[in-house]
């Protein structure tokens, strides 16, 4: 009897359960923070502090809270508990100075015609883990230079311009970054280029042009990177790389870096861009030239995806220690828009992880391009 009831009623009950579940399970269980998120950009007060470098000294004005200290031309901003916004306006020239900032809230540094050289550390060191807005004042030319050896410190100093937090490069001026010891620009978070003209030149005694941990995005502006060290990368990114605008030019000229650790020889070749995650280009121009032995244009652990913009990648290096490749991806090279020209003088223009001898197998083209040339040493696709 019970069995008969179960057999007859159960499917109907189940159907009701399914419908009820689908109808009721449509509520978001997030906390309501709209009171905070709707107040985006509002501030209660604003400190503008002007720092004028002059030779081996620096003059500070507008420091109403006494958070800035100066020794010679080494300027320290110690403002860890402030709740107000802060803008630091830098100008003048110093052959031996620096700026280091300790703070827990976002802030802005305006480079208003400043030249800072620091012989034993970064020119600017941001120890704040929050957003660091670097504004290049209109019509100004600014220069940051480090030395060939850094003094040992208890805090990180990974490049001429170093930030623990995110860096946003904005404004319409020009910035020259010269790296002689480590990276040109480095962030332990992510970097977004929005506007301005930036030249990053890293000597053979230095390392990468830009080193970033959590992501790299170019939205606009002009970025020129020139690195000369063996094994150096124009942009070394441990996360996703996105190019959505701007004009970017990268040149690497070093050869392979050979390291011997406990008898294990490790070879690191140069690359215009080395990305540990997805590389995506949707707009803008990207020109990469790599001239050293085994030099790569883009070396990516995941897909290289081009859907817009113009990408020109050329490698002219030899293949003694490593094989030069214009585009190298461990998972795939996908072109669905824009224009790609990849040229090599040795080895393959495109390497998507396959061993095929057919150039067409080494790239995925989605859609119908206007022109298409697929050879071992030249890949040209235009939509």
């Amino acid at each position, binding site marked *: 009897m019970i069995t008969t009831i179960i057999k007859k009623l159960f499917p109907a009950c189940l159907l009701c359960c399914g419908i009820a579940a689908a109808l009721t399970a*449509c509520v*978001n269980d997030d*906390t309501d923070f709209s009171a*905070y998120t709707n107040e985006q950009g509002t501030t209660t007060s604003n400190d503008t502090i002007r720092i004028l470098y002059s030779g081996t000294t620096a003059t500070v004005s507008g420091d109403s809270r006494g958070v800035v200290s100066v020794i010679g031309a080494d300027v320290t901003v110690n403002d860890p508990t402030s709740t107000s916004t802060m803008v630091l306006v830098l100008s003048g020239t110093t052959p031996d100075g620096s700026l280091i900032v300790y703070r827990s*809230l976002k802030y802005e540094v305006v480079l208003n015609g400043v030249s800072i050289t620091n012989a034993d550390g970064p020119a600017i060191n941001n120890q704040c883990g929050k957003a660091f807005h670097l504004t290049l004042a209109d019509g100004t030319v600014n220069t940051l230079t480090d030395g060939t050896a850094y003094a040992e410190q208890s805090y990180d100093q990974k490049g001429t311009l170093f930030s623990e937090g995110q860096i946003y490069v904005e404004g319409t001026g020009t910035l020259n970054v010269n790296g002689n010891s480590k990276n040109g620009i480095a962030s332990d978070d992510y970097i977004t280029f929005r506007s301005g003209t930036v030249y990053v030149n890293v000597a053979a005694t230095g390392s990468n042009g830009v080193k970033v941990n959590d992501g790299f995005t170019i939205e606009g502006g002009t970025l020129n990177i020139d690195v000369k060290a063996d094994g150096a990368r124009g942009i070394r990114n441990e*996360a996703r790389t996105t190019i959505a605008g701007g004009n970017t030019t990268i040149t690497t000229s070093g050869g392979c870096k050979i390291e011997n650790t406990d008898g294990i020889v490790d070879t690191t070749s140069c690359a215009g861009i080395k990305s540990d995650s997805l590389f995506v280009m949707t707009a803008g121009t990207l020109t990469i030239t790599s001239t050293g032995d085994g030099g790569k244009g883009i070396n990516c652990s995941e897909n290289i995806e081009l859907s817009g913009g113009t990408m020109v990648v050329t490698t002219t290096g030899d293949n003694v220690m490593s094989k030069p490749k214009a585009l190298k991806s461990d998972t795939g090279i996908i072109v669905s828009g824009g224009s790609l020209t990849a040229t090599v003088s040795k080895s393959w223009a495109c390497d998507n992880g396959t061993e095929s001898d057919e150039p067409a197998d080494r790239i995925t083209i989605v859609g119908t391009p206007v022109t298409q040339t697929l050879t071992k040493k030249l890949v040209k696709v235009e939509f």
Partner: protein
Amino acid sequence: MERNLIVILLTALSLLFSPLSSPPARAQSEGGLVLSAGADKKIDRKLSIGAEAAFRTRNDFRTVDRWSGSLSASYKFNKWLKADAAYTLLYGNNRESITYNYDTNGVVTGYNNWRPSYWNTRHRLNASLTADYKFSNNLHFSLRERWQYTYRPEKTVTRWDFDNSQWEDKVRAGKGKNQLRSRLQVEYDKKRATLKPYASMELYNSWAIEKIRYTVGTDIKLTNQHSFDVFYRYQNVKNIDEDDYDPDMHYVGVGYKFKF
């Protein structure tokens, strides 16, 4: 019959109220629903294959937690030993995450970041061995040891930074996770019976016990082809970060299976 049912009931109660089931310090729990529909096809006496789609809710049945689809194969070595392997595609809604600022004494001074809930895809592979022991005429004990690997691809999510008063992108890197799942089950399996009640306890181990599932339920065999599974499950979460909200769960589940 009565004696065996009493044994099952006592086993289920002892599992449910054993010391391991004491709630964690947060003492928060939610209700959820698990619905599934699947099909099995016997290839020969030893080998069978199957497919299943499942749906799960949380937040006291009000929020969809995940959808999933899986393909599986099962091989029976003999009467008491069976091996399974499966691939599952998971499309899940990750709970929001809130982090806080602390002063030097460890006292919360305010919010740090809020990452709203978001959907993402995960891939799961598992392989298991199940040993079955017939305790009496109709009473079976089984032990299933399952290795499970779940891969979460990289995903860029947005989060609100309270200090900066702005939304920012955060890349959640791709990550794989290995888990060992150990399930001990007792079931009453009488030939030609419509109901096949069972109780089980399952440990999720990834260098430490991460959660424990206690389940009581019954299979309902309508015909040789159509059957249902109805259960209640208490999921006790262990060893989670203080900032993570991962409550204990009370699940009610209904599953349908079609046998070719």
